[in-house]
């Protein structure tokens, strides 16, 4: 005799919890099923050494959608956001460095010493990015239209987007359309002369993807990274007090208080359906939960793998097989006995520290993907959360989190079991070139390979964004043309994870959009 629920949510990552919380608020009986012992997905932190708390795979939370924070009253649930004055610090091989501050004027002022022309260019570029991003924010809250059968609602929202677009004015409008399909390397090369500025900025277009900055469409990712937040040209750097898991806890609390039941250590092994209508889910221990609505925050491939292949049919299975999820990101967390010597002024190290001194450097690192080996000189985005929140590390010590690219999920030679330690060494070695002596500071380290991302976090292909955010898996065709409206393949099945529009990143966007769509389809309780 199986239990019963109105809604079953698969996966307690940020999108799953956002969807669960807002559906529970409607008075639905919601059960959230999480495979691992704790909630949070890529927000899940860990104590990598006594007293050292490392953040999740995502180490900043600046892209969180404002409406999500407000609607779910996350502040009341203990979310305390910490915003340093600095956004991005980019050290150079020659010992110099470029710092991007939250204050555009201050950034320009410092850039002026390197290159006056670029200093002025930065100010207008930041303005342009904000304008285009504000337009993208519009698109990100919309449910993508169905190209084959646009409804009146689609027409209306299309008109709204059209107006938003016209609001940009002809010049920015043209610019938006021109920029989106561009390579981010071209975007920054058109504006800046100094590679020290181009390189670090270009990484924003390729982080958590298998692309290099010379790949078309990476400009869209760069711009989207600033959509609906205060990113501008340099991007955000926002931390949660207590680490990223504190955000997960706040979301979980919001969901529970709204009445959702969250079960951890409960792995869904099957989505039951009859005549393409969802009936419920089956758990690893054999228990069944009946539900008319199943909301999957897992990635699209994994979600479809849970379904009955006979119900899906061969065409859908073929199409699902072609969803591109080439994981290329690894994570190295370091417990440090002191502050690494990137710069004498620790203020500058409180945001994102990017090792990507030139677009060629970043591109070369990404080339490794194409031939299936770990980059010898990877590009790295690191943070030192303990600078903003000392409680994350013992007195006077620090915890450092480093996102490392490129580390392809599928290695041509060897496997990640044998390459794991080399990944850690390559990362420390690369960081040390910019922070001499960093190696000696390392007391402990945790290496997360793309394979771990697949096995421990359930990310198919080890892809943190659930599906490569290329132009071919975008908006009305993310993850698949005709399956982009959160309703996913079977009646009553919804996709609420990063594999759905507006895609990856800790925004809560897909979860919120999916919940809204469910309300539309089933009516508010």
């Amino acid at each position, binding site marked *: 005799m199986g239990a019963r629920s109105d809604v079953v949510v698969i996966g307690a990552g940020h999108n799953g919890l956002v969807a669960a919380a807002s559906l529970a608020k409607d008075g639905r009986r919601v059960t959230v099923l999480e495979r691992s012992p704790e909630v949070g997905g890529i927000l899940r932190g860990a104590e990598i050494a006594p007293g050292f708390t490392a953040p999740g795979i995502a180490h900043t939370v600046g892209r969180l959608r404002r409406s999500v924070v407000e609607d779910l009253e996350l502040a009341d649930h203990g979310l305390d956001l910490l915003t340093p004055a600095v956004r991005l610090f980019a050290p150079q091989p020659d010992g110099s460095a470029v710092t991007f501050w939250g204050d555009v004027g201050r950034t320009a002022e410092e850039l002026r010493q390197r290159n006056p022309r670029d200093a002025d260019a930065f100010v207008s570029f930041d303005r342009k990015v904000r304008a285009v991003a504000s337009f993208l924010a519009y698109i990100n809250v919309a449910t993508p239209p169905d190209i084959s059968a646009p409804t009146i609602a689609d027409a209306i929202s299309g008109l709204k987007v059209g107006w938003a677009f016209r609001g940009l004015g002809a010049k920015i409008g043209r610019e938006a359309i021109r920029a989106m399909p561009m390579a981010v390397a071209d975007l920054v090369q058109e504006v800046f002369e100094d590679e020290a500025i181009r390189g670090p900025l270009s990484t924003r277009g390729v982080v958590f993807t298998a692309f290099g900055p010379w790949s078309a469409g990476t400009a869209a990712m760069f711009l989207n990274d600033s959509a609906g937040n205060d990113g501008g040209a340099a991007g955000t750097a926002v931390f949660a007090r207590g680490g990223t898991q504190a955000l997960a806890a706040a979301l979980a609390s919001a969901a529970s208080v709204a009445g959702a039941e969250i079960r951890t250590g409960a792995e869904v092994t099957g989505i039951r359906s009859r005549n393409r209508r969802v009936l419920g889910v089956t758990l690893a221990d054999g228990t069944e939960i009946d539900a008319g609505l199943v909301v999957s925050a897992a990635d699209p491939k994994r979600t479809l793998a849970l379904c009955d292949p006979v119900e899906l049919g061969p065409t859908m299975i073929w199409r699902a097989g072609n969803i591109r999820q080439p994981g290329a990101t690894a994570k190295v967390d370091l417990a440090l006995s002191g502050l690494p010597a990137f710069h004498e002024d620790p203020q500058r190290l409180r945001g994102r520290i990017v090792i990507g001194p030139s677009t060629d450097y970043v591109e070369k690192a990404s080339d490794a993907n194409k031939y299936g080996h770990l980059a010898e000189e990877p590009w790295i985005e690191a943070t030192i959360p303990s600078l903003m929140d000392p409680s994350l590390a013992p007195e006077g010590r620090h915890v450092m989190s480093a996102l490392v690219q490129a580390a392809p999920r599928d290695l041509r030679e060897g496997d990640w079991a044998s390459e794991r330690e080399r990944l850690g060494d390559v990362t420390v070695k690369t960081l040390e070139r910019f922070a001499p002596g960093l190696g000696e500071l390392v007391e402990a380290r945790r290496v997360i390979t793309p394979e771990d991302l697949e096995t421990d976090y359930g990310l198919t292909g080890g892809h943190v964004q659930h599906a490569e955010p290329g132009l071919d898996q975008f908006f009305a065709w993310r993850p698949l043309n*005709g399956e982009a409206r959160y309703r996913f393949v079977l009646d009553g099945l919804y996709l609420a994870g990063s594999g759905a529009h507006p895609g990856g990143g800790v925004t809560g966007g897909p979860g919120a959009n999916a919940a809204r769509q469910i309300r539309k389809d089933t009516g508010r309780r």
Partner: protein
Amino acid sequence: MPERYDAVVIGGGHNGLVTAAYLAKAGKKVLVLERRHVLGGAAVSEEIVPGYRFSVFSYVVSLLRPEIIRELELPKYGLEILPLDGTITPLDDDYLWRVNDHGRTVRELRRWSLNDAEAYEEYGPLMAEMARFIKPILSIVPPDPGKVSVRDWLPLTPLAKTFKDLPRRLQTTFIQLMTMSAADFLDQWFETEPLKATMSASGIIGTFQGPRSPGTAYVLLHHYMGEIDGAFRAWGVPRGGTGTISEAIGSAALANGAEIRLEAPVARIDVHGDRATGVTLETGEQIEAGIVLSSLDSRWTFIKLLEDGVLDPAFKEEVLRYKYRGSSGKVNLALDGLPELACKPGTGEWLRGAISFSPSLDYMEQAYDDAKYGHPSRRPYIDMIIPTLLDPTMAPPGGHVMSCFVQYAPYRLAGNAVWDDAAREAFGQTVIETIEERMPTIREHIVGSQFITPKDIEDITGLTEGNIFQGELSLEQLFFNRPVPGWSRYRTPIRDLWMCGSATHPGGGIMGAPGRIAALEVLKGRKRARRVA
């Protein structure tokens, strides 16, 4: 008192000539000004080695619009296209040989992979369908996304309708073609490396992109749109070399009353107030005209031929940031005999088609990686044609002409290196070494050679940075962004100055479409003007 023309066309390339022919046909007094001593721009045949005629740059034809051949009666003026049969991809000890005979190709593919043979049966028709769907775009004047004008957007609505009503499968394919990399697109279908690599080649020809660069799947389709006598994806070589295409179009223009002047380089486009009134030649001679049409790329047209201060700075900036990035070179060889492929000895029909040096996707991608960082590919992709097997008149009896399109050869070299004679020689030798690996006897047959770098293409034809498409075919430089965002309608900020070359929609290749649409736009514009007056 200088002569006055209705229209002056700058540049005697195939597009300039098409424009001139159509305007002359409509009764306009037209003058074409060509800088060089030969007509054709990048579509020229020249006798570089005594007795051997090379299609110096552009070497095959497929995209030439049938309506142009028809309306200008080009066959009457000597145009004859000899179809190329198939493509062979030589490997170390095997080969992949595809021919126009579908059945034979599928049998060949079965040798490699049953799945691929099966997929191939679906793939061809699907691409043909896609090409048919997208073809109308080739004759549309792109709208300006910056402003909402019903008249501009109207031509697109039937297209949007067709797209909406396409089966989901075709919609998806179209979206993928517009956004994917050639490699990712083909990976969905095929598993045979030489097949994927050789197919991906048409996605990167003339662009500074690798088969794994997003956006190259579109170029794949661009090359699928070619048709000869209604047969899609059919490639051929013109009898007498690509120059005969230009000569045929030129003759058509002359027959319709146009004038053509060779060795008449234009120094300046004369502008009075906000309108173009004619051109001044380098000799100082002034020619007045009602309108001026430039078949050159936008960099040359707006930066070299206009005096400073004429252009609005914002527009000038757009022109300057438009990307060219020539990526290809050419090696033309005069041979005293026919070389054989090591992997398929003999001199059979497989040499009569294209010979593609593209053994694997990695090979292609590595060739691109070299270029990406400013080096000519150590092992380049080569598209080889031996036109004399179809048209013996191109060489002395027993002799042969070998045309090798080579990618990649970046226009900008690493460091501050320049394309000097040494660099050119090194480039040519690398190509010959690469050929030698598959055709061991090639050197014994070489009696003369011509190595062409992107710099040479720029110097000889005037194509900026040696880009054969007058502007990189990247997604952000297509359709309404060609040749300059906001100026996709063949007009320019200067009244009576028009663009009519490959720089404009629908872009490069010996297609002639830009020249034709521009001419029709001019004639339409004139009519409208008269109606207003």
